[in-house]
C-alpha cells in the first residue's frame, strides 16, 4: 500500500471522506455496543426510534442542537483562522454568569431584560476568550493551553458564586441561585424545552458568519491569516488583530449558548456540569465536521444533537451509562482527524 498525493481533490471528495469517517465511527461504536452485550443494530434502532421517530425525542434533539449550533459556528470561524479555541465550555459558563448577574441584580424594564442578558452573556464569553487572544498576541502563549485552562477557572467561578454570594435565599440545601423572573425566561415552543429565539439566533449567526468569511473584506483578511500567516505578514495584515477579532466572535457565540441554557431551560445559575454537560467540547467536533464553513454547522450541529439525545435514550431504554455519548464523540473525532489525510491523498494498492 502507498499514499499518492492528489493535486486537486474535488469538493465531493471531502463529503465522501467525511461520510466514510462517520460510517467508520458508527461501526466502531457498534463494536462497543456489542461488547456491552447489545446488538449494534438494535441499539441504533432504539436510538433512532427514541429521537427522530418520537415527538418528544425531536424536542430533545433540538434542545441539544441549540448550544452546539451557537458554539459551533464561532469555532468553525476560529479554526479557519488557526485560532484553536478549546475553551468554549468556559466561555459558555462565563456567558451564563454574566447573564445571571444581569437577571439577578440589575433592575431593568421587563422588555429590556432578555436582550440585556444576551448582550452580557456574549460580552462575558468574548472577554473570556479575548483574554487568551491577548496573552497569545502579547506573550505568544499558546491559546490551546490558555483556553483549556480558563475552562477550569470558569467552572470554579460558577461554583464559588452559587455556593457563596449568589446562593439563592429559598434553596435550602441545594446549591444554585434564585430563580429568574418570568420576563427573564426565554419563550419556548409550546410544551417543550426548545427556546426558539436562541435557535433562530444560531441559524442567523451561521449564515451571517458564512457571509462574513466569504463575502467581506474582514473575512478575506481572516482567511489570508488562517491559510498563510507568512503571506499575511508580507501583506501587512496584522495577525494579532485577526486573532483578537475571531476570539471575540467565537467567545461571544459560546457566551450566547450559556445565556440560552440558563434563560431557556434552567432559569437559574446552577452547577457547571449540569449547566452545560460538555457542549463546549462536543462543539469542537461539530466545527471540525463543518470543515471551516460556518453555514455547514447547520447540518453538523443537529447530527451531534441527535447523538447526545440518543445517548439519553440508550441510558433510559437499554440501561447503558450516559458516558456512551463521550465514547461516541471521542471515536468520531478520532475518525475525522484520521480521515484528514485522505482529503489530499489516496491509497493505492500495489
Amino acid at each position, binding site marked *: 500500500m502507498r499514499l499518492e498525493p492528489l*493535486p486537486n481533490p474535488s469538493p465531493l471528495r471531502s463529503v465522501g471522506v467525511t461520510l466514510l469517517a462517520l460510517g467508520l465511527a458508527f461501526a466502531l461504536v457498534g463494536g462497543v455496543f456489542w461488547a456491552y452485550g447489545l446488538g449494534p443494530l438494535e441499539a441504533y434502532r432504539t436510538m433512532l426510534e427514541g429521537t427522530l421517530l418520537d415527538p418528544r425525542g425531536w424536542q430533545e434533539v433540538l434542545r441539544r442542537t441549540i448550544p452546539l449550533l451557537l458554539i459551533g459556528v464561532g469555532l468553525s470561524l476560529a479554526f479557519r483562522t488557526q485560532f484553536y479555541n478549546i475553551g468554549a465550555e468556559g466561555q459558555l459558563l462565563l456567558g451564563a454568569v454574566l447573564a445571571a448577574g444581569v437577571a439577578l441584580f440589575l433592575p431593568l424594564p421587563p422588555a429590556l431584560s432578555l436582550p440585556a442578558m444576551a448582550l452580557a452573556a456574549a460580552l462575558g464569553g468574548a472577554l473570556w476568550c479575548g483574554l487568551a487572544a491577548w496573552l497569545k498576541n502579547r506573550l505568544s502563549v499558546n491559546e490551546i493551553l490558555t483556553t483549556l485552562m480558563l475552562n477550569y477557572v470558569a467552572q470554579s467561578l460558577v461554583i464559588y458564586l452559587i455556593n457563596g454570594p449568589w446562593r439563592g435565599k429559598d434553596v435550602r440545601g441545594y446549591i444554585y441561585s434564585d430563580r429568574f423572573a418570568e420576563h427573564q425566561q426565554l419563550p419556548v415552543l409550546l410544551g417543550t424545552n426548545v427556546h426558539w429565539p436562541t435557535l433562530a439566533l444560531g441559524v442567523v449567526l451561521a449564515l451571517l458568519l458564512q457571509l462574513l468569511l466569504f*463575502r467581506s473584506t474582514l473575512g478575506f483578511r481572516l*482567511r489570508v491569516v488562517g491559510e498563510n500567516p507568512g*503571506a499575511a*505578514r*508580507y*501583506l501587512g495584515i496584522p495577525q494579532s488583530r485577526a486573532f483578537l477579532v475571531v476570539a471575540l466572535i467565537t467567545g461571544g457565540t459560546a457566551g450566547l449558548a450559556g445565556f440560552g441554557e440558563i434563560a431557556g431551560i434552567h432559569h437559574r445559575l446552577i452547577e457547571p456540569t449540569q449547566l452545560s454537560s460538555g457542549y463546549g467540547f462536543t462543539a469542537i467536533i461539530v466545527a471540525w465536521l463543518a470543515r471551516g464553513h460556518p453555514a455547514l454547522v447547520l447540518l453538523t450541529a443537529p447530527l451531534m444533537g441527535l447523538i447526545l439525545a440518543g445517548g439519553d435514550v440508550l441510558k433510559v431504554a437499554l440501561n447503558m451509562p450516559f458516558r456512551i455519548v463521550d465514547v461516541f464523540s471521542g471515536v468520531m473525532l478520532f475518525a475525522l482527524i484520521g480521515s484528514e489525510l485522505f482529503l489530499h491523498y489516496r491509497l493505492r494498492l500495489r
Partner: protein
Amino acid sequence: MGKPLLQLRDITKRFPGVVANDRVSLELYPGEVLALLGENGAGKSTLVSILYGLYRPDEGEILIEGSPVRIASPVDALRHGIGLVPQHPVLVGRHTVAENLALGSGAALFPSRRILPLIERIAGGYGLQVDPRAYVHQLSPGEKQRVEIVRALLRGAKVLILDEPTSVLTPQEAQALFRVMRELKAAGKSLIFISHKLDEVLSIADRCVVLRRGRVVGDLPIERASKTSLAELMVGRQVSFERRRQTPAPGPVVLRVEGLEARSERGLPTLRGVGFELRAGEVLGIAGIAGNGQSELVEVLAGLRRPQGGRVLLEGKSLPSDPARLFTLGVAHIPEDRIRMGSVPNMSVAENLALRSFEQPPIAHGFLLNPKALATQAQEQVRAYAIATPSVHTPARLLSGGNLQKVILARELATQARLILAVHPTYGLDIGATEQVHEALLHQTRLGAAVVLVSEDLEELLSLSDRIGVMHRGELLGPYAATEVSREQIGLLMTGGAA
C-alpha cells in the same frame, strides 16, 4: 562505447490532464555524463522520480545492463545502483556528517564511528573534500552536496543522478563540483546531470538529451551542440542571449540607504553598515551566496524587519515599517518564497491577484466584497500577463511556478511602482517565463521605477542590472557598474576574495 548501463524504453507517465513523459527512450553508458535538459514542466523531474522509484511509469520499461527491472521505491533504486543527489540536501542539520551517512546504512553498534574509514576511502578516492566530524548545519551548500554524493556512493551507486546541482553553488563551487564529476566519470560511474544552465551543460556533459513537453526532442553528442541550438530545442523557438539593456540616463534618487545595521533573531549581525543610492529607472543587482544578508536587506526595505541602526529614505522620507503602507507608497515586493509568502495557495487565482487591492473599490464595496469585480479584474490580469490557469477560481496551488510568479507580478505591478524589490524572481522558471518576468521588470524601469534585484543567477544579474553589489557577511561590496565587472570577479567577491 559498449553496452548501455541503463536503458529507458518508451516510458510514459500520465497525470490527470497531462502526459508528463511521452514515450521517452534513452540510454546511459558506463563512464559518461548525460545532460538532461528541458524547461520546467518538460518532464525532467517526473523522469527522475521514475528512475528513483518515487513514481511508477504507466507504460514502458527500464533495463539495467540489458535486463528489465522494476523500481518500486528508492530502496529498489539503490539496490540497482541508482543514486540521487537531490537539489536541496536532505540531511539532519544537528548531526555530524558521519552520523548522517550512517543513517540507514551503518552498522547496528557505533554506526557513525565504524563508517568513518569507509567515508574517508570513498571521499578521498574521488577528491570529495568532506570532514566527517563536522556538523551539517555548519556546512556550506556545496559541502552538503558533497555529503549527498558520498552518501549515494556509499550505497554503491553506479548511476548518479544530479538534480540541478549548481543552482545553489557559486561559480567556483560549481567548478569544484565539475572536477568531482570528472573523477567519478574516470572511475567508470555514469552521471545524469540535470540543469537548464546551458554553459554548464556544454562544459561538462558528453551527450545531452533534450525534453520538451514530455517528449525527447533531441539526443546529441555535445560536440554537435551549441548554446543557441540547445536553447531552441528546449523552447521550440529562437532565443537571444545578448544584454538587452542600455544604461538609462540617471533619474532622481528614489531610495537612499545609509549605514544600515541589523541583527538576526539570534542576535548575530546580519547587516553591517549597508549603504547605497538608487535612482529612478535604475536596476541595482545584489549578488551573494544565500545567508549573507540579502534576505535581511530586502526585509528591511519591505518593512518586514526593523533595522538596529542606519536609515532608509524613500524619495527623501523615512521608510515606514508597515508593508501595507509601503505598497500604497509604491513599493512592490516580489518575494523570495512564492508559496509561503507571495501567495495564499489555497485561495483562488482571483483572490491571490486581489491580495493587495481587496480593500479598495471596485473589489470592496464598503465592508463587502464584490465577487463580480473580483473576477473581472482577475480576468483582465490573467489576459495581460498570459497566466495559464483553467479559471480565475482555480486554487493558486495548482498553478506551475511560472504562472504563480506571473500572478505575483501582475498583482505587485498593477499600480505604478516607484521601487520594486525582486528576490530570485526567475528561480525555477523556464526560459519563456523568465523572459516574460525580465521584460515586465524592464518595462517598469522605463516607466520610472527603480529595481533592487536579488539573484543567485549571475547571468540574470549581468544582463539586467545597471550596477551590481555583492553581499558578503552582511557587508555590501560595491556597487560596481555592470559593464565594468566580470562574472569571475563577482564570484570571487561572493566568497570573500578581492575583486
